[in-house]
């Protein structure tokens, strides 16, 4: 009955109807899993904030920043390259948004295109980070600047890498029929995760390249 009603609707109303009229067991577990996933992201957020606290603490209490190593002051980071790389990562957030929207509109071909674009941009960001690491000119163990920089961006890079793997799996699952037009919690979670990784990068970019 509900499915029949949904056929008369179009666009966002149809999406809302499909979301709402999914069978109650799925609806209930979806809400539970969504809350659990949001809490997971919250605790992940605290993981980053604790390291950010350490970085801010060390930077504020340092006599000079960038710190001196062997009598020479270390160079600042190269903001322009990181800015371009950031645009790649934020762009992948946009493409991911379109991927999920197309899935909701039952447009599988476009979903696949946007998802592949997201994965490619994510890999591009990782390659950019690899380049950044090779040219940055400081070491992980030399100073607190290197310690904070490599630990935080490394952790973020690991999250991006995990996200790329996650999105690849989601793409395979979606094409194998794991998700439908009304049951697509996994895709929602993947999108949330990907946006979360983007938002963390906003903070890291500000803290290392702008501040």
């Amino acid at each position, binding site marked *: *009955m*509900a499915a029949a009603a949904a056929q008369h609707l179009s666009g966002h109303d149809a999406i809302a*109807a499909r979301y*709402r*009229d999914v*069978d*109650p*067991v799925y*609806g*209930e577990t979806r*809400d*539970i899993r969504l*809350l*659990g996933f949001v*809490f*997971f992201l*919250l*605790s*992940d957020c*605290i*993981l980053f904030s*604790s*390291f950010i*606290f*350490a970085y801010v*603490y*060390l930077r504020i*209490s*340092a006599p000079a920043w960038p*710190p001196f190593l062997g009598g020479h002051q270390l160079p600042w980071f190269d903001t322009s390259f990181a800015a371009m790389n950031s645009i790649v990562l934020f762009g992948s957030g946009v493409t991911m948004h379109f991927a999920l929207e197309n899935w909701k509109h039952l447009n599988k071909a476009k979903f696949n295109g946007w998802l592949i674009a997201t994965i490619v941009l994510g890999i591009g960001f990782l390659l950019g980070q690899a380049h950044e690491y090779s040219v940055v000119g400081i070491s*992980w*163990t*030399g*100073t*607190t*600047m290197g*310690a904070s920089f*490599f*630990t935080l961006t490394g952790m973020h890079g690991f999250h991006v890498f995990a996200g790329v793997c996650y999105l690849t799996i989601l793409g395979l699952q979606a094409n194998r029929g794991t998700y439908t037009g009304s049951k697509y919690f996994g895709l929602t979670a993947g999108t949330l995760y990907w946006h979360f990784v983007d938002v963390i990068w906003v903070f890291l970019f500000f803290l290392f390249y702008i501040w």
Partner: protein
Amino acid sequence: MQAGTSTTHEAHDAHDHIHPPPEGFVRKYVFSLDHKVIGFQYFFTGLLIMFIAGSFAELVRLQLTDPNGAIMSHTAYNEMFSMHGTAMVWLVLIPLVTGALGNFVMPLQIGARDVAFPWLNMASFWILPVAALILFSSMLWGGPHAGWTEYPPISLADGTAGALWCLAIFTIGISSTMTGLNFMVTIMKMRAPGMTWTRMPLFIWATFATALMNMVATVALSVAVGALFLEHVFSVPFFDPARGGSVVLYQHMFWFYSHPAVYIFIIPAFGVVSEVLPTFARKPIFGYKMIAFSSMAISILAFTVWMHHMFPSGIAPWLQLPFMILTYAIGIPTGIKIFSWMATIWGGRIHFTSSMLYALGFLITFTFGGLSGIFLASVPVDLHMHGTVFVVGHFHYVVAGGAVMGFLAAVPYWYPKATGRMLNERLAQLGFWLFFIGLNGTFLPMHWLGLEGMPRRTATYAGFAKAFPDAVFWNQFETAFSFLMAAAIGLLAFNVIWSLRHGTLAGINPWGARTLEWTISSPPPYYNFKKIPQVFDRPYNFDQPLPYRNTDNELDEFPEFGRVLMPIPQPVGAGA
């Protein structure tokens, strides 16, 4: 039925298909997804590690019977007290109060069939033995030496053992975080229909507050020990002053978790006491909302007081004052609870079962520990006493006299529900007196020894004993009494195993308690609730009928309190 307007109730109806219980030993008892079995697993693992960590404590006490050190080298002594603290905090207390009690009781009290993520729950448990193995294997490399806090730079001298310590704590931190997340979602989403926030049992409020802290604070601990691990293994200079690092930074990161951690142990104990006192005083809990909200207030304030552990570490004076005031402030919600409990038993009809004895003992010892905490909150007093055994006395009064007491009150209370048989009451009461007397005998003298200046964490105290000759007598006194506590725990373990076979049959509701777990059979069936009950009121109004409908057992089948244990004719107000 019109789809799309499904309320919580209908959603539960949709969930009414019951999964069959698993078959085969491994699925049933080892890698079980059932929250009750996982609760038992936590219970027995925690108890086993408690024996190991407790015997470390007894070795520490034996060493101090002689001011020159009676039995071991200084290095071995450092290892013993470090391992005692580490294992007791992370592998005993947190698994027992959140893992065992939370897992077994919480889904039953909210009328759920399991926790939200059973698989995650199983994973959380199985991380615990792995972490325990990593921690105890560090003793093969000499073990940690810098106390349970492992402050750098001292801990950096531990080498491999220190790295293994970090790894163990990091792993157990992940387990705690996952448990916290799981419990938060379970309590927020899976309560029985009609159980609004202010109709939840107080143990659920306590579990919720604990889960919140577990989820938020434990990650900060993981980061602290993770950074220490990086420093151990890859020489990353977070805490190395020679390369711009800061040792005080570790203390900040460590205590940002570890202060909430003490509330992670104690708040479930608050929850237990809030269940036990009204049940055995046969009176509604006094100040339900105040107790519930004070649990939440504590869990939030707990994040704002961490620097009071660091007054002597050279933090700025302008930071000391606000942290001193905030530390006093956290005494307010705790005081609200103490007074509410006293008002609950005031004029009640008190049944001195072993649970009730533990709960009353908790009121005494925990309040005492809280008061010595108020001493230590004051900056000048703390600077004087921070390095003395006064701190040890205070901490053990709140932890052994608070968290462990609360846990020991919970064991006889929920044992009948868990196993279907009563715990042997005589042995349990004997255990209480042993524990209570042993606890006070062990930790009370530490207060005046600490005021006289006896240093903590030292293998010998010959210099102090010269200045204060009574110290030797009091240390031997403490050691003697500490064995009473050990005997009490041994007795409990014996009792738990003996009663499995020989205890009196318990029936559905041996205490006449009113929370939801007492409406189903003992032990509960695999699916807990055949029908998901409807809740109409909070559970503490002892003079009214039970506020549930659609329960698995008819309400008038409930036995009166004391049918099994003691000949008390009628609870207050029932029928008379």
